[in-house]
Structures are given as structure tokens and as C-alpha cells.
């Protein structure tokens, strides 16, 4: 590698320019906006205005609670499921591997709007195929949209369907980068497959699992489209409203940019905390 400041920056400039305009400045700007009262013209500096409101706003705590609830249930379930998919897809005993891979990985290419529409139709009360199938095996219908618990479950089911395969791809790639001879040695020593998984695969895969978990947490924390489209703007009665949806409602429906920026920075704070935990979890043992 050669030391060439001018050449390097010539290659980097267009990228850094976009970064400066559309990321660096907005990051600073939204921090500043969060300390301003933005529904007066001109905006005025009022440090406690939005943050003070945030601390006392039941809608904020409702959105925070829903977001965290989805986070702690959906992310572990999905990562576990992705792990199962990856382990089984990696099995040498599997036939027609391509078909199974297609089934699990296909949702990765499906857009949020398209799949939200399908889920909405599949889970509708009287004519949804899911309730019809539940009925046909003797189970009662579930009203997925007018009760909070089923509505939350529906959001989690939808997100898990969309993203489990994505995580399975990453986990599978991680597994395939573990050298075969480790397993061959273990097999020669008559270590069972299950023990091999817990004592070889899992520890070696830890950084990849943590990576998946962090990406999923950051993604789920900003969850917007699913409660926006599937449960109709966070319904029933705010029961599935997330921080992402609250930000949208405050920022772009009520045009309250200051308050929405405070919500955005709360999300950033959570993300930073989670990233620090990740760095701590994957630190090199000394």
C-alpha cells in the first residue's frame, strides 16, 4: 500500500460528499432541531420543550414499550429459527437443497408493501385464509386486527417471515467458513452431532450471531411499514404503534419536527447502547 493522500481522496470525494450532505449534517441538525420549538415561525430555541414533553408523553412510552416488546420477543425467536434453517440447510443429508433454499431465502427479495398487503389479506377476520384454516381444523377464529395481543403477534410473525431467511444466509456463510477438519476430528473422537453444534459451531459462530442480532435489533427498532400497513397505522388504538410510527406521525403528519427529532435521538441512544453491548460481547479475550 502506498501513501498517496491526493489520489485516495480523489477516489473518496464523491462518496464523502454525499455522506457529508445527507448524513453528517442531518445527524447534527436533528440533534439541534430536537432542542427547538418547531411549530412556531421562526423556530425558536427551547431546550426543554421537546425533551420535556417526551418524558411526560404516554404516547411515547406506549411506542417505546411496544418497540421493546417486539424486540425482546421477535429478535431471539427469529435468530433461533434462522439458526435452525442454517444448520439444516448445511446438512450433507439434505436432498433438493436448492428448493429448500429458495423457500427460506425468497422472502428476502419481497418488498415491504407487497408482503404487508398479502399478510393483511391472509389474516383478515372472516375471509382470511389463516382463520379459514384454523376453523377447518376445529380451532376458533382469531381477530388479528382488533385485539392488541394477536395484532402484535401478527406483526412479529410478518417480520419473522420476511427476515429469518436473510439471517439464515449470513449464519450459513459463517458456518461454511468453519474448517471441515474441526468436525472431522470431533467425529473421530465420537463427539455427537448435537455436542459438536454446542461446543464447536456455536462458539465459533458467536461473532456472526451477534452481528445478526445487532442488525436485527437496529432494524426492528425502526419498524415502520408493518404496523403502518398491516395493522393500519399502529392499530388497534395504538396497540402496535412503534417508535418509527410515532416519529412518522409526529414528524410528517403533525409536522412537529422538533418532537420527532427527539424521538429519533431516543432511538439512536438505544442503538448506541446496543452497539456498546455488542462490542463488549465480542471483545477479544485478553
Amino acid at each position, binding site marked *: 500500500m502506498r501513501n498517496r493522500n491526493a*489520489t485516495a481522496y480523489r*477516489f473518496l470525494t464523491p462518496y464523502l460528499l454525499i455522506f457529508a450532505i445527507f448524513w453528517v449534517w442531518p445527524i447534527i441538525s436533528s440533534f439541534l432541531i430536537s432542542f427547538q420549538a418547531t411549530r412556531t415561525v421562526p423556530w425558536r430555541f427551547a431546550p426543554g420543550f421537546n425533551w420535556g414533553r417526551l418524558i411526560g408523553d404516554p404516547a411515547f412510552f406506549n411506542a417505546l414499550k411496544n418497540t421493546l416488546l417486539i424486540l425482546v420477543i421477535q429478535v431471539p425467536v427469529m435468530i433461533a429459527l434462522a439458526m435452525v434453517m442454517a444448520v439444516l440447510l448445511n446438512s450433507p443429508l439434505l436432498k433438493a437443497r436448492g428448493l429448500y433454499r429458495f423457500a427460506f431465502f425468497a422472502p428476502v427479495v419481497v418488498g415491504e408493501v407487497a408482503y404487508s398487503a398479502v399478510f393483511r389479506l391472509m389474516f383478515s377476520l372472516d375471509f382470511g385464509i389463516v382463520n379459514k384454516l384454523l376453523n377447518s381444523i376445529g380451532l376458533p377464529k382469531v381477530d388479528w386486527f382488533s385485539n392488541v395481543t394477536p395484532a402484535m403477534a401478527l406483526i412479529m410473525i410478518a417480520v419473522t417471515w420476511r427476515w429469518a431467511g436473510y439471517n439464515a444466509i449470513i449464519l450459513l456463510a459463517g458456518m461454511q467458513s468453519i474448517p471441515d477438519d474441526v468436525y472431522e476430528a470431533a467425529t473421530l473422537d465420537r463427539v455427537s452431532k448435537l455436542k459438536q453444534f454446542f461446543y464447536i459451531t456455536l462458539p465459533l459462530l458467536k461473532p456472526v450471531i451477534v452481528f445478526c442480532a445487532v442488525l436485527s435489533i437496529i432494524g426492528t427498532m425502526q419498524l415502520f411499514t408493518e404496523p403502518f400497513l398491516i395493522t393500519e397505522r399502529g392499530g388497534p388504538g395504538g396497540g402496535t404503534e412503534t417508535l418509527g410510527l410515532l416519529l412518522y406521525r409526529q414528524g410528517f403528519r403533525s409536522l412537529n419536527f422538533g418532537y420527532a427529532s427527539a424521538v429519533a435521538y431516543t432511538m439512536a441512544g438505544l442503538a448506541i447502547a446496543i452497539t456498546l453491548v455488542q462490542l463488549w460481547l465480542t471483545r477479544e479475550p485478553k
Partner: protein
Amino acid sequence: MSSLSSARLKRSIALHLFLTPLALIWLFPLWMMVVFSTMPDNGIFSPGIELLPHGNFIDNFNNLQRDTDFVGAIIISVCVAVTYTVLSVLLTSMAGWALARYQFFGKSVVVAIILGTITLPYAVVLIPQFIMVARDFKLANTWVALIVPPLFNSLGVLFMRQSFSMMPDDLFDAARVEGVKEWRIFVFIALPLARPMLAALCIILFLASWNNYLWPLLINSQPGSMTAPVALGTLIGLTKVSWGGIMAGAVMLTVPMLIVFVLLQRHFIAGIAAGAVK
């Protein structure tokens, strides 16, 4: 030996018995999307269980086109996604090249910032981006608004940096000895060598633009400037709307991507997996 292979057989059967229902459940929403898109609305909202496609796709598509100009929206989506992909591949591979092949002042800072943005929620930049593009630049409802702000992409740069840094030094040094300029080395030696990685990157970027929802929803909300997912999204939740039409739209958004996925599966998976393998 025979007991060993019969144990393998049992394990193999158990594996398939578990995985097949799971795969069918996973395919079910996609299958139902296709089925719904071919059913008349009164068929979708009827008490019977219908699991096979009918022949109503064209009628549904016509209903969709009556509800919103979906063809127009598809044209915008295609043009935007193609332009975005070309520009973004150019930007990210140039930046990745610089980070992989040169030592320069401030490099560790640039890398740290790029890594940092991976875990930063997009929500933090959303509002100022909107204010800037819509109010300051007056670019709402234009293609520029759809294409330019999403050009910053951290995983893509890291992927290209990884690809370029794996290439042998001698190759480039030989060219330098001959006096070939750096940008020519990049364009005529490095980029052709990175073709498989560029293919993976193109697919991922195209897909990201094609499926992007929140930003286009906010910035291009005028009819006639909407992308296809936004146009389709406006119909969801309306009372008098053709659900068969919405499903026809969903199929038109999804099936081409599924075909691309099947044809280029290897590149696709490489692009997604690249995030984890450092």
C-alpha cells in the same frame, strides 16, 4: 456398516419430515399472493378455501390501473433503481478502492465513521434529510430526490474494500512501473477483476432501491411522481379498492425479483453474506 447407513437414512428422513412443512409454510404467503392476484374480488372475500390460481389476473390488473397509475409508477421505479444502482456502484467501488489500496491521512477515521453508521438508525437523519431536500433544495417529487440521498451506503463500501484488498499487489505494481495512471489501473484492471463482486453489489443495490418505501413515501407523495411500492401502499386500507388489483401489483413487484433471485442466486447470497464474513 449397514447399521451406520440405516441410521443415516433415519436421520435424513427426520430432517426432510421437519424441513418440508417449514418450507411449505414459508412459501405459503408467496403462493397466496399469486393465487389472490388471479381471483376476482368476490372470490377473495368468500367463505370457501381457495388454494389454486384462477384466471382473473388481467381483470385485476385493469382494476389496479383504474385505482392508481401503476404502470407509470413502475416506469419511475425501474428508471430510479437503474440510475441509483449505476451511480451507487460507481461511488462505493471508488471509495472501497481508496480504502483498500492506499495509505492516507485520516483513513482510520473514515473507516471508523463508516463502521459507526451501520448501527446508527436511519431515523436520525430522516427529518433533516426531508427538510433539506424538500424545503431547501425544493426537490420534492423529483427523481433526484429519490436517487441521491440514499447513495450513501456503508455495507457496500466495506464489501468492495474487502474485494479489492484481496487482490495481489504485484498486479497493480507492475502497471505502476509501466507508468499507468491510478484511475486507469482502477478502471481497466481492478474493476474487471471484481466483476463477480460488482454483480453481487448491483443486485443488492437494485433490490434496495426497488423495495425502498419510507423515503419515497415521504419525499415523492404527489401522484405521478410516486414509485410503485408507494403507489401500491396508498391503496392498502382504502375501503373501495380492488384487493385483487393490489395483489396483481404485489405480484408485479415481486415475481421479477424472484426470477432474478433464482437466476443469480450465487451472487445474491454472496452479497448478503458479505456483511458477516470479515
